[in-house]
């Protein structure tokens, strides 16, 4: 698959996953957030999909940066700058699509660092980092695609007993315990979409 086709496939696959699970994300967010995560993610990724043809003709790095800026501008919630900064940082870290496990890990790590900086957060605070970091670790440990998917899903479940200390959920204190974090779930959806693209490759 050439890079322009893969750019376009990634956009479609991520967009489809978000679209299909938007209501679920909103339900999760209604429990411990402000109930807009599904709508926000759908708005953001629809805007990215609308730029599909232009993005497909860019280098992988440029496309990531452009998509990141679109998310920042369109999402409307904290997830805009969080995902947007992650995409922009990943785009800055590489011009070409990763071709090795080490390059893929480097790319994801650049995104994770951006999320940490933007959210002033780290693992254990019941956020998207609690999926992204375990996924990075599984990639570094040599996991195959099925194992990466499993790592993402298990990490989502693992946010359930966590106490939220960031974002709207932090206001809830102990009441945030027992619910899956919506950002962790949306991160896992994107991981699955990337896995879909890799399986098609």
């Amino acid at each position, binding site marked *: 698959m050439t890079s322009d086709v893969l750019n376009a496939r990634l956009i479609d696959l991520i967009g489809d996953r978000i679209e299909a699970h938007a209501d679920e994300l909103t339900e999760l967010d209604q429990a411990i957030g402000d109930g807009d995560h599904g709508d926000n993610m759908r708005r953001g990724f629809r805007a990215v999909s609308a730029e599909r043809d232009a993005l497909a003709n860019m280098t992988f790095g440029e496309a990531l940066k452009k998509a990141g800026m679109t998310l920042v501008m369109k999402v*409307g*919630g904290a997830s805009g700058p969080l995902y947007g900064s992650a995409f922009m940082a990943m785009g800055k870290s590489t011009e070409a699509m990763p071709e090795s496990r080490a390059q893929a890990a480097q790319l994801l790590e650049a995104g994770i660092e951006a999320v940490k900086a933007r959210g002033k957060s780290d693992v254990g605070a019941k956020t998207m980092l609690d999926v992204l970091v375990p996924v990075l670790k599984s990639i570094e440990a040599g996991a195959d695609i099925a194992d990466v998917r499993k790592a993402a899903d298990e990490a989502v479940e693992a946010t359930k007993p966590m106490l939220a200390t*960031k974002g709207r959920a932090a206001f809830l204190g102990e009441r945030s315990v027992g619910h899956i974090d919506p950002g962790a779930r949306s991160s896992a959806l994107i991981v699955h979409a990337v896995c879909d693209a890799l399986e098609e490759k």
Partner: protein
Amino acid sequence: MTDKVSIVIVSHSPEVAKGAADMVRQMVGDDIAIASCGGNSEGGLGTDVAAIMKSIEAVWSPRGVAVLVDLGGAETNSEMAIELLGPEKAKQIVICNAPVVEGAVMAATEAAGGSDLETVRQTAEDFKA
């Protein structure tokens, strides 16, 4: 207008942002520039990075701009907006860690007296204590 610190109010709700700005104007008059900004890019509840950037620019003052925000997304989007305005302007913009309505009133009162940006921020944040 621009010899004083300006105020930007960012809320998930355009009505809350506008209402808070109205309250501030009634209490401190028109001595300082105030902008309000709320809602996502489609007009629903949320915040909009581009709109926040526009609001800050609309009331830009060489003395600085104090930003008041309501919930987490408003803060994250405001931080993003400030970063996108560039490092020179960013140095003269602060987000006050204060409740949006009370903080805006306190910040505006301090700003109307001609205080510098750091003092304005401090006054808004002291409200909590």
